């Protein structure tokens, strides 16, 4: 139980990712699939950010404080910047891919007049 509390963030990462994965697999609606993809992505981002978080640490912008100076920062008091940067660009690229996904869905809707996977498949086989 203690381990569960210590590592609650990872538990939630897995649940979020699996929610997104389930949505991508099982939902009929194409927009719902796109939202599921975005939720899956936030799960991964949450994993990276929470693995780089430190207890009682400051944001990764250096300032003069009591414990560390501008030129010689105390490493344990500054949150890990590397994981944050990886995720920062991932978010922007994520919205671009979400846009591509929505554009594809819209094109499919133009031709089939539906977002529902079953109806689209029926139209294709007809």
């Amino acid at each position, binding site marked *: 139980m203690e381990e569960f*509390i*210590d*590592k609650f963030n*990872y*538990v*939630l990462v*897995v*649940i979020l*990712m*699996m*929610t997104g994965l*389930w949505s991508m*697999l099982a939902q*009929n609606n194409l*927009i*719902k699939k*796109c*939202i599921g993809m*975005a*939720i899956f992505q*936030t799960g991964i981002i*949450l994993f990276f*950010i*929470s*693995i780089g*978080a*430190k*207890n009682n*640490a400051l*944001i*990764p*912008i*250096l*300032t003069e404080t009591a414990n560390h100076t501008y030129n010689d*920062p105390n*490493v344990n008091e*500054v*949150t*890990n*910047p*590397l*994981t*944050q940067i990886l995720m*920062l*660009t991932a*978010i*922007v690229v*994520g*919205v*671009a*891919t979400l846009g*591509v996904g*929505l*554009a594809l*869905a*819209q*094109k499919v*809707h*133009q031709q089939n007049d539906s977002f*529902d996977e079953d109806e689209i498949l029926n139209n294709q086989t007809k």
Partner: protein
Amino acid sequence: MAELPIWQYDTLFLILVLLFGITALAMQNLMAAAIVFGAYSFLMCLIWTTMGAVDVAFTEAAVGAGVSTVFIFATIYNTGVCAKPKNPRLAFKLFAGLICFVTGAFLLSALSDFPNWGDPYSPVNSTISPYYIENTIRDTHVPNIVTTVLADYRGFDTLLETAVVFIACIAIYSILRVDAAKSKVVEPDIVTSPPAYDPTDSLIIRQASRIMVPFMQIFALYVIAHGHYSPGGGFQGGVILGASIILLCISFDLKYVLRQWTEKKIMILTSLGVLIFATVGLACVIMGGEYLNYEVLDPILPGDKAYARSHAILLVEIGVGITVMFSMIGIYINLASNGRFDRGL
């Protein structure tokens, strides 16, 4: 274990986030799902602020809660809001649920190998990252470590990520764009389904956004220019700039905006941003260094070697901002007008 090693607020937010995510997927009405998804992103942004990831939170607030919700709206506007499945396929859903459950169980079985949440001595936090925390000021004089690593230490990756945004924009153009004048296909279903735009009905919204847009743009420019010293940078500022133009598209008319920002201008400016970024890298090669090694720009840019890096970061961020801004506008216009550039949300 005297003190609780995790942040209580975070636990609360995380549970809320999960609820919002599940609600967004369970909603039948797509418009409502998009709104709940916006709220989900905003809660995520709060979580990242409490974990100290201010730049990521800023990006998420601008991108996740703002622009991506608008993109989903734009798609729904052209297609219709209801998502009622005709045949629910319960067996398949349960099977998919089982697959996800098993995958999740496998992932959770590795739980004990992970470091505790917030452990400053974990491998991630104690091997590579101290170098950047200790040397950023000496190398570049930039206090915001995230900006430095983004544009300097890791410049290649950011260049290619900017290129990915640019390519995604081109992909959307090639998927959706049709020339309305040349197109023989008449699509009456799209014209009739949404309520027609009435230019007289939203005086308050139009006037309010007319006042807001300049302030948004000034704030975005501040975010780009002050990214060295505060959360922000090219990505966030670019998205806010794009959002200001998208706000004009929504509150006025698409044509009103397209008079000023023609399609040609938008495309040229989208590629200009990547070009600026790549040119800065090329300038480094011409000056005798490696690609994107800003130190050798010292003779052209004011200040010593470290300040040369700092100034080159600003140039690069401007390039990123331009590309991201016009990509967002291009994607929005394509989605909202169904690729015909005549009318929109």
